[in-house]
């Protein structure tokens, strides 16, 4: 990737005595995303004393540190140094990997599929077609447990969250909310609309890293029949060759 001709403007906010929030504030959301993720990688590689790490999402980055070793002031200076460095050399280029995810849609696997179809004034089949129509960029790892947060399918309307969040959503649940899409790596409470479930194991607590994808990787869903679900039992989500 070429060096960015115009640096993305950022704002840095205090977030308590052990964290800073860095927000990229250009009108170009793609540039903002790229800036905060490049900065996260730079901070990780540079490894300053007392900096635990950072959590990049869409336009922002939370940098966490140990206030016994360093301070908000020092970390702010370190972040600014990283941004200048990135303006100079450009964001590191990395070839995205692709993940293919089999999904059983509807029924007990996707209890909210019909509700979503009704809200969008589309048929269930049209919802499935839109959801499987394109590859999604994994924008960031979210809660719970390294969920791949993606920009959602091209539905006509944003999908409202459930009024009463479920106390427990199974691992592998494929869900949508607002303009976003996600897979749940672990059992957790959730207020997103579950439209299907993948039989693949996404989170492997015995391996490092725990989830196989990183922000920037691509993910694509394809439909399988309920009878096929068991055939995938125990298989892990892996990048396609």
């Amino acid at each position: 990737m070429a060096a960015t001709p115009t640096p993305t403007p950022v704002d840095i906010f205090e977030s308590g005595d052990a964290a800073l929030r860095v927000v990229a504030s250009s009108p170009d959301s793609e540039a903002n995303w790229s800036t905060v993720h490049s900065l996260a990688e730079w901070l990780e590689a540079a490894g300053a004393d007392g900096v635990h790490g950072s959590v990049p999402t869409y336009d922002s980055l939370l940098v966490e540190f140990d206030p016994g070793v360093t301070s908000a002031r020092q970390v702010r200076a370190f972040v600014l140094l990283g941004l200048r460095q990135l303006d100079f050399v450009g964001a590191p280029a990395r070839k995205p990997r692709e993940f293919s995810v089999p999904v059983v849609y509807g029924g007990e696997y996707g209890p909210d599929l019909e509700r979503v179809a009704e809200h969008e004034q589309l048929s269930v089949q049209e919802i499935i077609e839109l959801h499987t129509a394109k590859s999604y960029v994994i924008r960031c790892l979210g809660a719970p447990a390294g969920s791949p947060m993606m920009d959602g399918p091209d539905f006509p309307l944003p999908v409202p969250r459930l009024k009463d969040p479920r106390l427990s959503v199974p691992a592998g649940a494929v869900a949508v909310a607002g303009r976003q899409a996600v897979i749940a790596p672990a059992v957790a409470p959730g207020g997103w609309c579950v439209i299907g479930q993948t039989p693949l194991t996404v989170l492997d607590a015995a391996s490092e890293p725990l989830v196989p994808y990183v922000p920037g990787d691509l993910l694509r869903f394809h439909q399988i029949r309920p009878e096929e679900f068991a055939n995938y039992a125990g298989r892990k989500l892996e990048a396609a060759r």
Partner: protein
Amino acid sequence: MTGSLIIQQPGNSVVTDLGRFRGPRFGLPVNGALDQFSARAANILTANADNAPLLEITALDFRMRATSDILIAVTGAPLTLTVGGRECPQWEPVSVRAGETVAVRRITGGLRAYLAVHGSVEAPTLLGSCAPDTVIGFGLRLSEGTELRTSQSVAPIRQPYYDLPLFRLGLTRPEFSSQAVVDVTDGPDVDEFGDTAELLFNTEYTVSARSNHIGLRLGGALPERQSTAEVLSRGVPVGAIEVPSREELLVLHRGRGVTAGYPVLAVVTSRSLDVLAQARPGHTITFRKTTVPDATAKYRAALRELENLRSTVATVFSLLGIGNQPGWSKLAPAAGT
């Protein structure tokens, strides 16, 4: 010499450490001991590394038996500690003989106690930490009959007269109160709450029973967000104060999900997170505004106190011959002499 601890009455206890600091970048909360000062102090009192695995005992009574002679320390909320039936002091090293039962009872005034063992205990790790993660189901929760391996044995040290407490290392214990004062700094989104942000400092909040290691829920007058614009998911710090519903204030603690879409009104200081870790349902909380430099200074003052304790412990333990290094008199003679 190795030995083990046999859990007889687990109550609500886990093996933990100071946290999974590499977790957040992989979407995992930091977790770890909620009262970090007490956890560090317990490890320092037993001459362990600050981050060594130790037991976190929450609210309920706990009992275990040691199969070898060990040295322990119990810190955290006020409680009754007995070893082999004898009452022993908290916040000091305590010698336990093989076969004796260690009981922690009547945790009062606070919620969490920490029990460290010299040489620590063995526990599985994930990303370099043994801290339990309830969301992904990782960690060592203790149950009746759980056997924890210990790596170091310490010959019994007992005051020969009347079993008086042996150590008086003199660490200033934190205060535990049912009416806690919690320091916060302005959150990055404080402006979104307009004038209602001031309510945070003029209200006495009550800790709800729905509070846990993920977050405390507090009842009381709630600041109100003035805009309704959608917020993109962002990383949120431990200590973030949010107003997700019209019912309660949410204060995130170490088990918090690392991203959320709610504006952050204020952030609890590192030092005051320890105070919140000890708040019981029904206790009241009032918030006090501070600045990041003042919060950092207070945090470092607490670390200095712990450093002083560490050097006192090192001196006393080397005189008593406790520790990993043999004394000079036990070293083998140099070759050729």
